[in-house]
């Protein structure tokens, strides 16, 4: 399994990378951690003539937490997300999710930018970013622009990113309160059969739910932010009846397909189980 021939480029700044991409156009692909693109190249399902490797661009590797907002450079690896103590404390759902991605070797290489930009419905970070209401920063020949994670995904592998743009960073607010990322998978390293990211906050009275956000992974062409279910928990609080209503609302918003992870009914069943579990777990952590 040897990929086709290509020319390798290793720019040392994001501006140089964007200029290269502009110059080479459709013949070029951007390489982040490589754990999606390199396997595709080995199968020759992807045959770029030019590969623009972002790994030497130090400006794309950072985790900063300022005034309640987290900024993460696109080339930050899952391993780095997992081991960042302040991030683990301020937004613990990131660590909980990253630990369920791939396996240790993949987490040393795989990046948050590659995970969110690829548009693969199986990736875990897009759903999580919708749950966190994150914003993606894109840099292209016409300059920089920002796109909400909830607006970014159009269909499988189709996103709001233009071919000549590079996703450079991701921002989201710190999230106090309860959290859970629950993922049903066949084995370590597999994509989710169903996964759910849940954030919940308790109101000052210690009973009501002041904030809820639920998003689901690999249950449709794109991640699904379950707005109605989130609103329902905020309106009705978190109790057995509201959890079941929220789960039903989530299941009504997904469109899983038959594949080697199971038939549609099974996926809906698995999705309901993990969503219920994630809501209960998140609420118990508030």
């Amino acid at each position: 399994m040897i990929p086709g021939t290509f020319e390798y480029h290793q720019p040392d700044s994001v501006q140089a990378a964007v200029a290269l991409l502009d110059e080479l156009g459709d013949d070029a692909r951007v390489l982040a951690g490589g754990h999606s693109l390199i396997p595709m190249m080995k199968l020759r399902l992807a045959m770029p003539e030019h590969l623009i490797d972002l790994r030497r661009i130090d400006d794309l590797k950072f985790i900063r937490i300022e005034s309640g907002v987290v900024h993460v450079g696109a080339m930050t690896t899952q391993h780095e997300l997992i081991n960042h103590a302040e991030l683990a404390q301020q937004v613990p759902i990131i660590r909980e999710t990253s630990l369920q991605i791939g396996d240790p070797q993949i987490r040393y290489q795989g990046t948050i930018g590659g995970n969110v930009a690829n548009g693969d419905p199986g990736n875990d970070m897009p759903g999580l970013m919708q749950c966190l209401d994150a914003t993606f920063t894109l840099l292209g020949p016409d300059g920089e622009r920002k796109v909400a994670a909830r607006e970014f995904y159009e269909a499988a592998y189709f996103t709001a990113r233009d071919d000549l743009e590079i996703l450079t960073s991701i921002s989201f607010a710190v999230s106090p309160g309860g959290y859970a990322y629950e993922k049903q998978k066949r084995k370590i390293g597999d994509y989710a059969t169903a996964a759910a990211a849940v954030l919940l906050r308790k109101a000052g009275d210690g009973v009501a739910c002041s904030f809820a956000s639920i998003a689901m992974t690999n249950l449709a062409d794109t991640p699904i932010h379950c707005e109605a279910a989130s609103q329902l928990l905020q309106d009705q609080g978190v109790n057995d009846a509201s959890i079941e209503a929220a789960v039903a609302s989530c299941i009504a918003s997904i469109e899983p397909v038959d594949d080697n992870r199971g038939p549609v009914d099974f996926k809906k069943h698995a999705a309901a189980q993990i969503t219920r579990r994630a809501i209960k777990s998140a609420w118990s952590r508030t």
Partner: protein
Amino acid sequence: MTTTTINLNVNGKSVETTIEPRELLIHVLRDRLDITGPHIGCETSHCGACTVDIDGRSVKACTLFAVQAQGSEITTIEGLGDPDKLHVLQEQFKEHHGLQCGFCTPGMITRAHRLLQENPNPSEEDVRFGIAGNLCRCTGYQNIVKAVLAAAREINGATDKDATRETAA
């Protein structure tokens, strides 16, 4: 055909080799540098038989182009021990019959080495989670886990008789 010359430090030795950009690191190690400890198992990033250590990270060498490793320090199983002086992990794999057919062993030990660098005192669960990227198709993980736990104890100065952390039968 464009070629490029890369410099690597492999097992403490500086090497220079001229390659095509499309050559995967595992192929360059095995075919050009004659370092055949890292194995080609699945070639699809799943099995971990090709695991090497690059600048302190465990990496599947089938999923990295050699050109990307320019300037890196690479450690393979050959750099951990040799037949006259086995690494403690090799000793313990031998002691606990962790090799079985032996095909996955170089990747297992190279990965376990990094795991113990990051977590010198792992629980059984830490070991199982930490080597989850390495498959053994003899399916004999029990002895592999025992060997890694025993190596951790030995590195920490305890003898194998102090096997208090070992919870599995």
